[in-house]
Structures are given as structure tokens and as C-alpha cells.
């Protein structure tokens, strides 16, 4: 392993093995529906509370990754897991049922890539050889914690995003697979001075721009090195802002940029405002769709940038601005 440039890491022996994605009904009926392993028909996922439903998603995802890769609890060195709910309770409660050491992490919607970077570093440093990274979000747990009761009839503006219901997990390993974790750039906290909690795209685009620019500088690359540059959940609002900021800084990603929040839903037909968001957005799109593009030789090099807005309702009520962070990871087809 070596640190490269200011904020980046280059990996030499980290690979992405099996992945698992479990989603809710709206994600199943979206454009990427067929790329997910399993979908529940109902937001309760056969449980009796939203929190239990989200736990169910996470447990399914972690169990499925282990089944797919023929591993059990003692084969996994660590689980690195995070979600959006206070004190990471979803991940923590799920891990009661496993006998695997846990790192609970929080990076809002950037958690998936944060976990991948941490997991890859542990493997690269030979501190573990099989690590599961898991993240989740659930539309209703997020609504009730960050916004209003789920049945509240307040109108959301078009710039709002729709929290993805789902959980994504993947196994990182030191055994060679078809997908190599090539490098990563750790984000810094950026405050774009936005205050509107119903417009996360504008709040997070600056962080994504910083991280992408830093990544290109640190690794001495240009955007056309990658077949795809995919951000986590900037939505239709944040995408043009990101492209615009980077253009002003002589980085042109307009040809190969796309966003998980735009990919996961059909915003013309589904009631999702400007697109999807939440920890699961980047996780299920990356582990379901993007990984299958790599596995099927449709693309060779991809940069995934998960973006997270680091606020909570208390800070919003206190009229604070929304700081955000973005972590980038580069995956390559071998």
C-alpha cells in the first residue's frame, strides 16, 4: 500500500469478491430492478416496524454475501457497516446475530465507499483477508428521523431526493477476483454554505467536485482515464452543478459522468422528485449494477464517488449550513 498525493491511496492486492443487494418495491420496479438480488414487495419487509425492516435488509444482504462466497462467521475477519439511523443502530443490532468483529462507521450517504476504503486498507495492510462492507438505508426510517412522520402531508419541493430502501454488502478479499480495488481518495469535509435540507444535490456537489479534482491530481490522471465516473446521490439537481464546478477547474467529466441517484429510479414515472439518495443508493447501484458492468466486460475502469450530507435535524433547526463529504474509489476489471 502506498499513500499517493495528498489524500489518495493506491492498493496492490485488494479485490472485490461477491456482492449482495436487497431492495424495496420501488427500487425493484425502477430501471435497474433486474440487477438486484432480492426485493421485498412491501416497505415493512415482513417485519412490524421500519427499523426492523431495515435490519432485515442488512441481515439478508450480509447473509447472502456469505452464502454466495461459501463463507461463515469464522472466515470473515471484520464487518464494516454503517447506516443513517441514530447511533448506527441498524448495523449494530444486525450484528448481534453474527460472531464477527464489527467496525461501525458513519459517513451519511458516503458510508459505502468509506467502508470500502477502510476495508481495502485493512486487507492491503494484511490485517485481514476477508472483510464484508455493508450499508443500508430505508425510506421510512430516514423520513421519520430526518424529516416528518411518513404519513405527513407536507409538500416537498422538486429538488428533494427520495431515500432508497435497500442494503448492499460486498466481500473484499486478498484472493484475486475479476475486480481489483485500484485506488481511493478520502474526502475532506466541505461546506458549500447551503441551508436547504430539501436540496442535498446543491449541498453535496462541492464535496464531490473537491474529491474528484483531488483524485485526478493525486494520481495524475484525467477523467477520460475512466470509462465511468459515478457519483452517489447528487440527483438531477447536483449533477449539472458538479460538472460546472469541475469545468471551472479544468476537469471535464461531462462525457462519462453519471449518478446513482439518477440511475436507480425513473423520475418521469416514479414519484421520486430529483432522484434517489441515502446510504443504500450508492451501495445497491454499485454492488448490483456497476459491478455487473465490470464483470461482464462492458467497462474496465470506474471511479465511484459516494457523497454524504453530514447534518442532522437539530443542526438544521439551529440554522446551520450543511457540510458534506465525498469519498472516491477506483475499481478496475482485471
Amino acid at each position: 500500500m502506498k499513500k499517493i498525493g495528498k489524500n489518495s491511496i493506491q492498493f496492490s492486492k485488494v479485490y472485490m469478491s461477491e456482492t449482495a443487494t436487497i431492495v424495496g418495491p420501488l427500487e425493484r420496479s425502477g430501471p435497474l430492478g433486474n440487477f438486484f438480488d432480492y426485493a421485498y414487495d412491501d416497505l415493512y419487509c415482513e417485519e412490524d416496524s421500519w427499523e426492523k425492516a431495515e435490519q432485515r435488509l442488512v441481515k439478508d444482504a450480509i447473509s447472502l454475501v456469505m452464502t454466495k462466497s461459501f463463507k461463515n462467521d469464522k472466515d470473515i475477519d471484520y464487518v464494516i457497516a454503517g447506516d443513517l439511523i441514530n447511533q448506527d443502530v441498524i448495523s449494530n443490532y444486525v450484528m448481534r446475530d453474527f460472531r464477527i468483529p464489527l467496525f461501525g462507521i458513519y459517513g451519511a450517504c458516503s458510508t459505502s465507499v468509506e467502508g470500502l476504503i477502510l476495508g481495502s486498507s485493512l486487507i492491503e495492510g494484511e490485517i485481514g483477508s476477508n472483510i464484508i462492507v455493508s450499508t443500508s438505508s430505508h425510506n421510512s426510517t430516514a423520513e421519520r428521523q430526518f424529516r416528518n412522520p411518513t404519513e405527513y402531508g407536507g409538500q416537498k419541493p422538486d429538488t428533494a431526493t427520495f431515500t432508497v430502501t435497500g442494503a448492499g454488502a460486498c466481500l473484499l478479499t486478498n484472493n484475486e477476483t475479476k475486480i481489483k480495488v485500484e485506488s481511493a481518495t478520502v474526502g475532506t469535509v466541505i461546506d458549500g454554505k447551503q441551508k436547504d435540507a430539501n436540496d442535498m444535490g446543491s449541498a453535496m456537489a462541492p464535496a464531490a467536485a473537491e474529491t474528484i479534482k483531488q483524485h485526478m491530481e493525486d494520481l495524475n490522471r484525467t477523467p477520460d482515464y475512466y470509462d465511468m465516473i459515478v457519483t452517489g446521490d447528487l440527483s438531477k439537481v447536483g449533477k449539472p452543478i458538479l460538472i460546472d464546478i469541475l469545468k471551472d477547474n479544468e476537469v471535464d467529466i461531462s462525457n462519462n459522468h453519471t449518478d446513482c441517484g439518477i440511475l436507480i429510479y425513473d423520475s418521469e414515472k416514479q414519484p421520486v422528485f430529483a432522484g434517489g439518495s441515502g446510504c443504500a443508493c450508492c451501495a445497491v447501484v454499485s454492488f448490483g449494477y456497476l459491478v455487473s458492468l465490470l464483470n461482464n466486460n462492458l467497462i474496465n475502469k470506474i471511479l465511484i464517488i459516494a457523497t454524504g450530507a453530514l447534518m442532522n435535524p437539530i443542526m438544521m433547526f439551529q440554522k446551520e449550513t450543511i457540510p458534506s463529504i465525498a469519498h472516491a474509489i477506483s475499481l478496475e476489471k482485471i
Partner: protein
Amino acid sequence: MIYLYAFLVGGLICVIGQILIDRFKLTSAHITASFVVAGALLDSFDLYDKLIEFAGAGAQVPITSFGHSLLHGAMEKANEVGFLGIGMGMFDMTASGITAAIIFAFLVAVFFRPKG
């Protein structure tokens, strides 16, 4: 004619709220709270009663009428028993609405579950 006025006046009050939401990014709580204050304010000049006379439900249904009813009940009682009547009569006219909202909310919570 009262039906037309009810539609127009009720609709217009809502449009004012909508513009405040879109233009000034006020939250729902800010809108409803300020509308109640506006209703009480209008009532203190006896203007709200004229609006109700003119538009019927168009003025009774929007939340502004809650502020009007609070003040109205308070003043009626105050005229009967003096200064203390303001507190005693505060909920006189709105009691049925608040009671209904509490009871129905409670019952719905008992018999339904959120759909998400």
C-alpha cells in the same frame, strides 16, 4: 353565490400559503403558525367575521379561522366575567375541533399503521 365565494376565498388563502412556501422556503409549521396569528390579528379588528359572512366555509375552513375562534371565544367570555374571561373562554369555540382532532388521531393510531 356563497359556494363560489367559499371556493374563491378558500383557494386564495391557500395560494398565499403556497407562495410563502415556494418563495420564502417557510416550513409547513411556520406557515400554519403564522396563519393562525394572522387570523387572530384580523379578528381583533372584527374583520374576520365579515370574511366569514362573505365567504362562509371559505373563511371557516382555513387554519386562520382557528386564531379567530380562539380570540372570539376569549373576548366573549371576557365581556361576561371580565379580564379573567380571556383565559377561561380561550378554547370555548375551538374545543370541539381540538377534541375531535385528538380523538380521531388517537383512534387512527390505534387501528391503522403507517404505510410509508
